Structures are given as C-alpha cells and as structure tokens.
C-alpha cells in the first residue's frame, strides 16, 4: 500500500504547494478538490493507532483514489483568485473546510467498517466530533470574512454557503443521535456511514469544474 500511497502523497502535496504559492497572498478558491485527497492521505498515514482496521483503511484509500481522479479530470482551479481573498480569514476558511471534510470522511469510513464487521465500534464518533469542530470553525471564519469584506453575514453571490450549512445540520443531527443514545448503535453507524455520500455530494462535487481531458 505504502508503495503507491507515499509517492501519490508527495505528488499531491507538491501540486497543492505549487498552486497555493502561485496564488499567494490570495486564496485559490477552487483548490479544495485537489487538497482533500492529500488531507485523507495524511490522516491515514498519521493515524497508525487503528491501522489494523483493514476495512476502514480500504474504504479511505478507495475514496482517496476516487477523489484524486475526479479532481484531476474535473479541475476548476483555472479561475484567477479574487482580491477580496487577500485576508487570513479566507485561508482559515479553506484550511478548516478541508480538515472538516477529511474528518467527516474518516468518520464515515470507520462507521462503514464497523457495519461490515457486524460490531459497530464507536471510533467513528471521535472523527465526527473533530469534523464538526473544524466545520464550525470553517463557517465562522467564512462569516468573519463575509463581514469584513462585504459587511453582511452572508454573501449571496456564492451558493455553496447553503451546502456548507446543510452539511453542518446533517452532522448536528448525527451528534445528537449519538450523545442522547437515540437509535441503536447499528442504526447510528449506518447514519454516520451515509455521511460519506453527504460530504462528497454537498461539499466536493460542487467544487468540480467541467471535464478537461489531460492528454
């Protein structure tokens, strides 16, 4: 696995570094799809404690590959960055969004692995909580950026704000289900596993552009 993962990670890190440093001090708004596979790859490399859980690892690796291919074939980061992204809050927004997505997808992977093994563990909950914390910080840095740049709490020019809020509400319901012990452990794990679909659909796909055949 490492034979493919590590070179892939280095290539992805180099690409993100190059694109980001090109746009600096502005924020490359549509680099998210290329950064998410890097985030997942780093999380799986650093998270050695549960590296024995082969099902979750396979799920994350499969997802990383899918996201990397999608980001490669459907790039949107050919747009020039815009001047109002020249602020620390925009970079924090980008960072927290990527970390939030990564943690949510990790949570879904462990929930999925638990379901397949027939004994759903609660390890997914840890990642869901971290994901929720990062996602909330992403929303708050977005709000702050919106206030400083436009004077209002919501910028209606970008529809993606509604999907960020939709994902947040989805995870609020999941955390409440878990913390209050509502539903069985199996049902809660199934709900957490469905988070992968929600995160990819609501916060990854909208950032993709049209197909651009690279060869």
């Amino acid at each position, binding site marked *: 696995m490492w034979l493919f993962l590590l070179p892939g990670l280095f290539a992805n890190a180099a690409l993100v570094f190059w694109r980001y440093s090109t*746009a600096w001090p502005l924020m490359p708004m549509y680099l998210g799809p290329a950064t998410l596979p890097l985030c997942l790859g780093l999380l799986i490399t650093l998270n050695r404690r549960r590296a024995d859980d082969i099902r979750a690892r396979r799920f994350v690796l499969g997802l990383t590959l899918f996201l990397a291919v999608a980001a490669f074939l459907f790039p949107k980061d050919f747009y020039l960055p815009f001047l109002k992204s*020249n602020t620390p809050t925009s970079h924090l927004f980008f960072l927290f969004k990527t970390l939030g997505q990564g943690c949510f997808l990790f949570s879904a992977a462990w929930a999925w692995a638990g379901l397949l093994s027939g004994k759903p563990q609660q390890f997914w*909950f840890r990642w869901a909580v971290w994901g929720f914390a990062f996602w909330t910080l992403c929303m708050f840095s977005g709000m702050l950026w919106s206030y400083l740049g436009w004077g209002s709490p919501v910028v209606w020019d970008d529809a993606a704000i509604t999907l960020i809020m*939709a994902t947040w509400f989805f995870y609020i319901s999941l955390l*409440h289900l878990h913390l209050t012990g509502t539903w069985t452990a199996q049902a809660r794990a199934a709900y957490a596993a469905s988070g992968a679909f929600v995160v990819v659909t609501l916060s990854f796909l909208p950032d993709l552009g049209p197909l651009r055949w690279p060869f």
Partner: protein
Amino acid sequence: MAVLDTMPIFSYIWKKLAGIHLTIVLCLLLAADLSLGYVCLNRNEILFAPLNDVGLIAWINTYGRCNLKSTAWLLALLVLLTLFCINTFVCTTDRVARLIRHRKKYPRLRLLFRLAPHLMHYALILILTGYLSSYTFARVLDSRTLVPGSSLRLPGTEARIQFQSFSPDYYKGSRMPAFDQHVIRPRARLLLIDGDHHRKAELSYNKPVIFKNYGIFLKDFAPKKKGGGMNSNERIDLTIRKDPGVFLYMLGMLLFTAGIALYLTDWMAPKNGKRRPDE
C-alpha cells in the same frame, strides 16, 4: 419550571418542544431545504443579491413574493430556523435548570464542562438572532462613490467622511502574469470628521472602518492597474451600514467557539488516569 408543573397543558407543550426527535427531524429538514436552496440560488443568484441591501421584509414583499418558485426555500428556511431556535432553547433550558438544581453534586470545573454544550446552544440562538436583526434592522447605503477631496455625511449625524488619497499596493511577483502591475491591496486614506474632532483612517478590502456606529466597507475602486489605462481617475465605491446585529452574531461566534473548546478539552482530558474511550 414550577409554573409548568402546575399547568399540565404548558408542561405537555414544553416537553414536546424539548424533544430530541424534533431536533433530528428539524436538522434533516434544514439540510434538505438548504440543499434545495443551492439549486435555486445557483439558477437565480440575481434574485438574492439585493437581500443584503434592502433588508428581509422589503425583500420578501418584492423579490420573495413575486418569485415564489425560486424563493420558497428561503421562506421555509426562516420557519424551520425559528422552530429550531425554539426547540434548542426549550431543550437546553430544561437541562440547564436540571444541572443548576443538582449543582452541588459537581465540582466547579466539572459543572463548567457540563455546561459547555449548553453554551453552544445558547450561542447558536444568539447568532441566529443577530442574523435576523441584521437582515431586519440594518440601515444600508449602497454604492456611495467618492473621488479624492470629496466627502459625504453620515445620515442622522453631522459626521463626515472625506476621501483624501489612494495609495494601493501593486502585485510584485511574476507567478501570476494576469496580475502584473495590478493592485493587490487597495488602500484609501480617509479623514473622519466629527465636529472639531478629526481622525485619519485607512480603508481597504477586508479592513472596514467603524465610525459613529457605522461600518464603512470598500466595495470597489479605480484604477485597478498602475497607470490606469482608460480608467485612470481615482475613485472608491463604499457600502455604509449601521447594523445592530453584528455585535450579537460576533458574540455568538465567540461563545460557540469557547463552548467547543471547553467540550473538546473535557473530552480529550484523561479520566482517572486513562483516556476517555471513544464513546
């Protein structure tokens, strides 16, 4: 709470409103409604852009009513968020009252950690209340243009803003040829005049100036490029807002962040020498 116990009908309604199932259903409805909102907003961005300038009530009476097919999701969102706020308030107040009743059972720090989720709940209500007041009561002067030397008076006051000079930073790198010689950070020097008091301020993108409770935001500027080409006359376009909701939603954000920090600290801290299990 004692009042509720003596009146069974109120007690019944209170309990129903505090239900966790209601929270789950509302969250899922909100997620679905916001996803639908993405589609509508993407197709009709132009309908929603005036919301920040004209305010919620005027927007509903004009754009909202006349384009119900595209705006119904936002009206539904308002109803759902109101229900969600009520549910959150009732549910968390119930639990906080219980915690306070049994406060002697917990050491002070433990009680603080147990209050962290409730702090987040109240903070969320504060944020949403701030949003509502912002969209209902904000006074907005959109697109006020100033050229060097000109000034404008803030409504309802004798205070004036004078645009003195424009001294932007230009892009110096070579990594983005499209930005060559272009402004990377606009800087407008303003003189804020309030009677005999004069104060200098610098206005830029993401760096508003606050003066007499008004927020002054840079909306646009010219020239965009060194030399300027055909558009070389210096000018700045301002958005001026008096927004009573800002303090509320900023305070809410701060409290919510504090609540998350407290919750994570408690959750990550070792319990009786062991790390807390993932449950």
